[in-house]
């Protein structure tokens, strides 16, 4: 039985002025996999992530998530549907504690939760603990990334790797089924990178599919079974990283002609 396809990108295009940042992109992500997205700068990797997560609207093409069309849907609604992401440069909410950062994300992670939020708002019980029962979600997300001990710290006091983990925790708090991870290993040392690789691998076991955009090939090598290589806005290769390294076109893209 072939694995279930959860995300399908069909002929997606995105232009910025005259520049075609994405050109007829087709891509599928299957259940329980980590897909690596690689390619030189300006090849459209981050643009694709931005389109899938709703930050940009595609100019043409369709995107399906569990068979439902999602292109052009607002980012916050996609977060509710189960698509979430991290950013290359971590963007914690300054002035909020680690736990509050995660709470913001957990707050809207389900319809039922939202309803109960308004119900309690009406009864003026909004300040009571656990009105929405998100406490468990928050704690789970924080402990998956291992920030338990830091949860009362201000987000600004975290170091780079902790800020990246916080970004991951925030994404997890929305209970995603698809997680888009944009250059999470950049700026981290080996030990920190290994830790993140380990976390991502445990997530897959929890039925979260992941797309990883990354320049660090050994990181990609370690966690992905399949990579898609992008160049000038289109995928030009799909397969394992070893196959990619021996593919003439891929080598040309990376090393120049």
């Amino acid at each position, binding site marked *: 039985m072939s694995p279930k396809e959860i995300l399908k990108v069909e002929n997606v295009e995105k232009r910025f002025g005259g520049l075609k940042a994405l050109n007829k992109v087709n891509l599928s992500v299957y259940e329980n996999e980590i897909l690596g997205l690689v390619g030189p700068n300006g090849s459209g990797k981050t643009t694709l992530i931005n389109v899938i997560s709703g*930050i940009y609207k595609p100019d043409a093409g369709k995107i399906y998530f569990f068979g439902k069309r999602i292109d052009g849907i607002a980012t*916050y609604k996609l977060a509710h549907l189960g698509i979430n992401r991290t950013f290359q440069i971590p963007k914690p909410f300054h002035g909020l504690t680690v736990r509050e950062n995660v709470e*913001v994300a957990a707050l809207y992670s389900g319809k039922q939760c939202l309803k109960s939020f308004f119900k309690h708002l009406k009864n003026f019980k909004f300040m009571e603990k656990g009105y929405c029962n998100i406490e468990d979600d928050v704690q789970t997300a924080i402990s998956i990334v291992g920030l338990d001990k830091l949860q009362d710290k201000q987000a600004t006091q975290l170091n780079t790797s902790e800020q990246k983990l916080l970004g991951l925790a925030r994404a997890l708090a929305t209970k995603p089924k698809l997680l888009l991870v944009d250059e999470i290993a950049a700026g981290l040392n080996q030990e920190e990178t290994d830790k993140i690789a380990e976390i991502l691998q445990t997530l897959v076991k929890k039925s979260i599919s992941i797309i990883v955009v990354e320049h660090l090939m050994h990181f990609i090598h370690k966690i992905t079974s399949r990579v898609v290589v992008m160049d000038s806005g289109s995928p030009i290769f799909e397969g394992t990283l070893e196959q990619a390294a021996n593919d003439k076109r891929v080598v040309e893209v990376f090393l120049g002609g």
Partner: protein
Amino acid sequence: MRKKNIRLIIGIILILVMTALFALLPKIYNNNFLLFNIMLYIALAEGLNLIYGFTGYLPFGYVGFFGIGAYSASLLILLLHVGVVPAILLGGVAASIVGIILTPLLRLSGAYFAIANLAASQAIYYIISNPHLENITQGPYGIMLSSVYDATASYNAMLIVMFFAFMLVLFFRQSRFGLSLMAIREDSITASVAGVNVVLARTIAWLLSAFVAGLCGGVFAWYTSVFYPETVFSLNISIFAIVFVLFGGAATLIGPLIGTVILYGMYNFIGISTPQYFQLIYGLLIVMLIMFLPNGVVSLFKKVKDYVP
């Protein structure tokens, strides 16, 4: 007990004490006018705090909502013979409606929003004070509300509005709605990725903030009973509210309160007869704050920060 809950209790106590204080003070201190104005500016500063403190938009034309509230309430009373209390409430609603009309301004970034909002309040002022509209607004000749004048009742109305503004800020400070607003203030894209409906949340804060200013305007009209367009659209009202919030510290309950009590107290002491002294002082204060203490006086209490309501 979690810090947040302690903060809530402190906040509630603070609100109750302040409300009780202003309820009782007129009995022992006869400068009713001063007490009223302090309450008015507390409410305005807290109302401005809703939008500036929690979303980062600096409404330089906040006075526009105040003036709209004052004029709407007065005209409803004078022309349509609406009761005073419903008229004031409708004044708040009218301010919110103007807020809805101005929501597109929220698309602009910081300084442009502030300038555009300032321009909007000036435009409203010039429309209302236009002699061509004398039949409706009395144009530049002002409003006489002496038929419904009631010093005690309007004082108490201000007390209620102040209480309401306090409660709103406390709600923003404690609730997860407020948390998501602060997330938007830090980074709107990341907030939307976290699942926050950025546009909706921002608009709610904006309209609530306008509503508070509108209520203040209505009560002010009732209390003074005679006023001119330039009284209720004076840029100084915006400026005072902004300076009080900046001074005390935005996004807290206590910051605007401290700011208003200290600075308005100072204004009353040195400012009313020679306002330029006060203007010089708060000008210098702003410059110093931006250079050395951008988060206001409250940020001095770093150690107990989590308990500051």
